[in-house]
């Protein structure tokens, strides 16, 4: 396989990374909102969020992407492939993040809430200073491992035309008929990209392990 072919595939990396980061960012923010809805104590909000999360996770990602790109994109308004992919993956990530945050909330020791209340800290500071930092630290390993999965899932965006790694690999294999080498290379790229995330996660996890009350 020629260098040019390799270079083409490598060109997809920026899109893969961009899509992953965008979806993650959207997902974390929306996920926090969904989690807040679920733990608000208001039954309507709780039920709504729970239903949304269930549906988002029950339908395959590719179907969401197609719904957004072909469904909304051709009928209601124009959406670029990247936008459709980012929205779709972002929504699914949000659903998963909501569950991760909910679990983390339960793990942060109940006593922390009560101690903050006993010190008469106003609700907002309770949240920001005591709970949220610990919440983040507890969730970090789950978020990191989800991020690795997300990185690989971005490959499905190739089917709606986002020029990331899998898209480029498909294109190259059609031109060169060297499917084995092409897709092997693409596969290795995904594996290689996930390694720094796994390392960073382990490092962060070890550093933060001590600072959470269980």
């Amino acid at each position: 396989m020629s260098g040019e072919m390799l270079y083409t595939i490598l060109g997809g990396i920026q899109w893969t990374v961009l899509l992953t980061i965008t979806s993650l960012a959207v997902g974390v923010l929306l996920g926090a909102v969904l989690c807040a809805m679920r733990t608000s104590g208001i039954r309507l909000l709780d039920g709504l969020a729970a239903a949304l999360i269930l549906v988002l996770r029950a339908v395959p990602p590719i179907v969401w992407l197609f719904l957004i790109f072909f469904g909304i994109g051709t009928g209601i308004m124009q959406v670029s492939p990247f936008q459709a992919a980012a929205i779709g993956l972002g929504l699914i990530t949000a659903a998963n993040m909501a569950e991760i945050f909910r679990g983390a909330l339960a793990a942060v020791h109940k006593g922390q809430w009560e101690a903050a209340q006993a010190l008469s800290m106003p609700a907002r500071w309770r949240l920001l200073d005591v709970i949220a930092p610990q919440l983040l630290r507890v969730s970090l390993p789950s978020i990191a491992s989800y991020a690795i999965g997300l990185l690989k899932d971005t490959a499905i965006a190739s089917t709606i035309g986002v020029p990331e790694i899998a898209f480029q690999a498909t294109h190259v294999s059609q031109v060169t008929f060297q499917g084995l080498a092409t897709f092997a290379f693409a596969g290795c790229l995904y594996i290689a990209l996930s390694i720094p995330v796994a390392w960073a996660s382990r490092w962060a996890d070890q550093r933060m392990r001590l600072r959470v009350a269980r």
Partner: protein
Amino acid sequence: MNETLAFWQQTLPSLLDGFRLSLQVTGVSLLLGIPLGLLLALGLRSPHLVLRAPLLAVIEVGRGASVLVLLQFVYFGLPTTGFTLSAFASVTLAFTWCTAAYTSEILRAGMEAVPQGQREAAQALRFNGLDTLRLIILPQGLPISIPALLGFAILMLQASSLAFVVALPELMSKAQLIGSNTFQYMPIFILVALLFAVICIPATVVVGYLERRLGRHL
């Protein structure tokens, strides 16, 4: 609304045909992949690096590569080595590999969750390694793994929707065909979503219930 319902009624049989194929390919992959996953998990316990290294490689590739790329690798890649497989066989091969890789980790965790005291009791009673595994560890470790395995099965069914890229006429493939013929993209993909939801939502609820029940037993 009526139009849409009529459209759905019309297209449902074709979609259900595809869905049947989706379920089949998922089912076969799980049936083959989970026992393989168990073998991998057991093989990793070997003290010999010569055995562990290739197993680790199989697992890392099965887990590390994107499912889509794995699919394409098997379907488009194998023919260049002289081996040609049908779409169904390729998808099954790729999914079995993926299943074995992920479930080996699930099963390993399940076996490790068996309390250490059980192993010590078996040691004190002079059980040999094979008996300890067969009679004490696996009977407790496998049930522990069931919720996670079921959760994975659900994910695998969802992953089958990617098989259209290798021309397997499953659900997604049928939907795309209908969509491009009728331009009724929104309705058809909503129907697809509904079909998946009808299976996956109850399945997810069952898994959640099982997780809670199993937790109480321990």
